[in-house]
C-alpha cells in the first residue's frame, strides 16, 4: 500500500458499477462497555453488539438510477461495493438524498450500514491498467433539465429549487453465536421533499395539505434518468425575504411509505 493514497487513483464501485464519487467515507464502530468487578479491578471490555460499519458516498448520477438503491422498496438484500480495491460485502443502503438547483450538477448522497470484515489494510490505488480503462461518462444528472412535476400541489407556482430524501432504519437480527446478522430488515420507511417557490397557495390546515408530485431527473440532453414519486402531506410552509432579494416560500412534504400485506 502506498503511503498516501490519492483520490485520483482510487475507484469506487457498487455491484460492479463504477460511481463518480466526489466523497466517500467509511467507518466502523464497536459498542463496548467496561466490566468492573466487586474488588475494584477491571475484568474486560465486553461487546454490546456487532461491529457496525458506516459508508457514505456522494456521487454524480451518470446513468439510470440503480434499483438496489431503492430505499423504500421491499428488497432487503445486501449489496457489495469495492473501495480502493477492497471488497465490502454486506452493505445495506438506508438513505438517499439529493437537491436540484438551476444549472447545477446533481450530487446524490447515500448512506449504508455494513457488517462483516473489510480488509482495510489492503486499500490500494488502481493499477495502470485499471486507470487506462476508466470509462468517461457521457451523461450526468443536471438541474438544467430536471424538474418537479406538480400533480397535486395546490397553490404552488414556480418551483426554483427542490430536494428529495428517502430513508429507513435497518435493524439487524442475529442468531446466537453469530456476529454477522442473518437479516437486516427495513423499518419506518419515509420520503420527504422540500421545495422553494414564489407562491405556496393557502396556509395549510391542521391536517396539512395533500401533496402529490414526481421528481424527474434528467441529464443535460433531456434524457430521463429516473422519476421519484412523492405522495404525502405538505406539512410545513415558510416565507423568507432579505434585503435585495425576492420573497421566497419553502414547503416540506412528508410521506410514510407502507406496503399492504399479502395474505399468507
Amino acid at each position, binding site marked *: 500500500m502506498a503511503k498516501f493514497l490519492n483520490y485520483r487513483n482510487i475507484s469506487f464501485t457498487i455491484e460492479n458499477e463504477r460511481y463518480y464519487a466526489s466523497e466517500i467515507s467509511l467507518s466502523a464502530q464497536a459498542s463496548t462497555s467496561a466490566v468492573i468487578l466487586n474488588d*475494584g479491578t477491571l475484568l474486560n471490555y*465486553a461487546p454490546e453488539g456487532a461491529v457496525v460499519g458506516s459508508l457514505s458516498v456522494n456521487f454524480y448520477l451518470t446513468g439510470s438510477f440503480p434499483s438496489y438503491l431503492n430505499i423504500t422498496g421491499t428488497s432487503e438484500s445486501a449489496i457489495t461495493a469495492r473501495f480502493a480495491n477492497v471488497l465490502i460485502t454486506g452493505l445495506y443502503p438506508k438513505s438517499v438524498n439529493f437537491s436540484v438547483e438551476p444549472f447545477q450538477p446533481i450530487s446524490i448522497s447515500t448512506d449504508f450500514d455494513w457488517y462483516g470484515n473489510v480488509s482495510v489494510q489492503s486499500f490500494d490505488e488502481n493499477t495502470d491498467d485499471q486507470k487506462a480503462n476508466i470509462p468517461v461518462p457521457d451523461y450526468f444528472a443536471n438541474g438544467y433539465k430536471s424538474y418537479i412535476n406538480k400533480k397535486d400541489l395546490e397553490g404552488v407556482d414556480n418551483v426554483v429549487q427542490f430536494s428529495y430524501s428517502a430513508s429507513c432504519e435497518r*435493524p439487524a437480527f442475529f*442468531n*446466537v453465536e453469530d456476529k454477522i446478522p*442473518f437479516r437486516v430488515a427495513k*423499518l419506518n420507511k419515509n420520503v420527504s421533499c422540500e421545495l422553494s417557490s414564489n407562491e405556496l397557495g393557502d396556509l395549510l390546515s391542521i391536517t396539512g395539505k395533500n401533496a402529490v408530485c414526481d421528481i424527474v431527473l434528467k441529464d443535460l440532453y433531456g434524457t430521463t434518468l429516473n422519476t421519484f414519486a412523492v405522495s404525502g402531506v405538505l406539512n410545513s410552509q415558510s416565507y423568507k425575504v432579505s434585503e435585495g432579494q425576492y420573497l421566497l416560500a419553502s414547503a416540506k412534504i412528508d410521506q410514510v411509505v*407502507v406496503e399492504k400485506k399479502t395474505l399468507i
Partner: protein
Amino acid sequence: MSAILSGLNIKNIYEYDGTQSYSKYDIIDYQLVTGISVYPAYTGFGNTGLTTWFNNDFLNSFVTDSRFNVTGWLNSVSGSGNLIQISDDENTKPFVDFNEYYLNIYGDQFLSGSGFASDSRTFITLVDVSEIKLSTDSRKIFQFCSSYGENSGKFIVSGVSNSGAAKILLDSQQYNAVSPLYDTKNIFTIVQDSNSNSIKVRQNGYEIGTYSSFPSNWKSGVLIIGDNPQTSGVKYYELIHFTGVLSETQIDYYEKYLYEKYFDNTRLYFAKNNVPAGEQYSPITFSGRLYWTQDIDELFKLSYGSSVNFSSNLSTLEMGDGYRSNVAKNVNTLQTTFQLNFDGLTDTQAKCLITYFENTPEAQNKSLYEGFKGVNIDLFNPYKNNAELYFKTISHTTPYNNINNIKINAESLYDSSLDYKGMLVQLDEVSIKTYNSTIYDINYNDVFYYGSDSFNLRGYYYYTGSGYNQGSSGVTGPLIIGPNNSPTGADSWFTKDFYFKGDIDYGIDSEIRLVVNDQKNSTIEYEKDGINYNLMQFNVVFNKRSNKEARALLKFLDEKAGFKIFEYILPQPYNKTINVYCPEWSHTYNFYDNNDINIKLIEVKSPVRATSVFNTIISWSS
C-alpha cells in the same frame, strides 16, 4: 378439515398435495393421500373381495399356549384361513404382547396357513422391520407358496436404509424403496393381476415397480409370515387380503385406513427448502426428507436475548438457630424455564413458528404410560444440544410490516442431578473435558471433570491460572501438568471453590431474625431468635461476562443442583467467608461474549462437606 387444522389459530394450511410445489416454511398436514379412509370390512361398496384380515385389535384374535406364545392368529373374516404354528418348539412361536398393537415375529418364529389361493389379489400389510446392519442382510415379510420350503413367492426387504441402497424384492426382482425401511412403519401393497401376469408393488401409497411374468407360486394358497432366523424380525400390525384387483382409489382408501390408525399423522410437516412438485417429495420418502422436517433446528435458530431461569425444587427443614436442611424432592431438582427468542422473522417464518408451537402437543406419547414428547432443540451457549423442552407460552410482537419477534417459554423436565455429566451444562468433552495431565490448550475459566474413587475429590475443577505464570491468557501447546499442580495437588492450578467475582455495583440487604412478642393493643417486644440470627439472603450479579466465564459459572451452579452448599467470600466491607447455597439463578445471553447472570444466595450454617456420602458413580449407557 381435520381437527388438527381447525384447532390451530393459523389459516391456510392444507393437506399435502403431491401435484403442487411448496415454498420454504410452508406447512402441510400429511395424510398419505387426499380423500377418505375406509374400514376394510365396510360393505357400502358391495363385495370388495375381502377374504383375509389379520389385526391386533382384540385379544381373542390370538390363540396362545399357557405361556402366551401364539399358536394361532385368527382371521377376522369368518370362514377364511388362519395363521397357525403347530410345532412344539417354543422357538418357533411368537410371543403376544397384549400392550402393543403389533405381533413381533423374530428369529425362527413364523406363522403359516392355507386357503389363501387366488390368481389375482390385492394384499396390503403394515409392518415395522427391525434395522438391518449389513448391506447383504434381508428380512422376509411374507411368502405365498404351495408348501413350506419353496423358494419363490417371497416379499423381502434388503439393504441398509439409504436412498438407492434400501431394496424391496419380489423373489429376485429388486425395486428401490422410496421411504426408509427399518424401525419405522411401512405400508406394503402388492396388486397381483393374472390377466396382465404382473404384480404392482407399492410402498406407502407410492408405486415403486411392476413384477412381470411372476411364477405361479404367487397364486398359491399357503401364506407364511416371519421365518427370519438370527434377526430381530418384523412387527406385524395388519394383513389385509382381497381377491381380485382393486382400483387405485380403493387401494388408497385402505392404505389410508392403516395410515390414520398407526402412523403419527397429527404432527404437521414444515418445508425446510423449496419443494418441487411430485409425490416422490412427500415427507415420508427419502427424497422428501431433504425438503420436509419436524425438527425445529432445521427451521429456526435462536436469537440473542434468549434466557433461562432456574429454581430448585426443595423440601426445606428449619431446625432452629438458623440451621436448615434442604432435601431435593426428586432427581429432577431444577425447575428450568427457557425463554427462547426468535427475532426478525418474516411473516411467513412467523406463521411457520407459531404453527409449530401450536402443534407441539400432537407429538407422540413418550410411552404407553406417559404424556407426549417434548421438542428436541439445540439450546444456546453453554447449554446442551438436543434438549427436550415443553413449549408452554408464546409471545408474538410485530414492530413493523414483515418483522416479527417471537418469544417461546419452554420447560425442561427431565434433567437429572444424578447424571455426573451435568443437567443442562454438560461434560461434553468439547467445551468441558475430563481432566488429563497432558493438556494442549488451557485458559482461564476452563472447566475439567476429575474422576476419583473419592467422593470428596472427584468433580468439576476450574482453571484459575494461579501458580502458572501466564496470567489470564493461559498457555497454548502441549503442557504436562505435574501431580503437584493437578486439581487435587498440594499446589493446584485449579479450584473447586466459588472463585467468581460479582459486579462492582452490588447491594446486600440483611435482616436480623427476631422473635416478636405482640402485646395486643399495647406494644411489641423483641427477643433474639436463638443464635445465628444474622443469616443473609442476597443476589449477586455478573453482567456482561464472556462465554467462557459464563460456562464456568453456570457449570458450577449446575453441579450444585440448587441445594449443595459452598463457600462464598462476601465483598468489601464484609470480606468474610460464609456458607451458602444457590436455589435460584437466571442467565441471559445478550450477545457473543456478553452474558448476564443473576444468582440468589442463602446463607446457612451447615457444613460444606457432607459427613456421609453417596459414593457411587452412575454411568449412563445412553
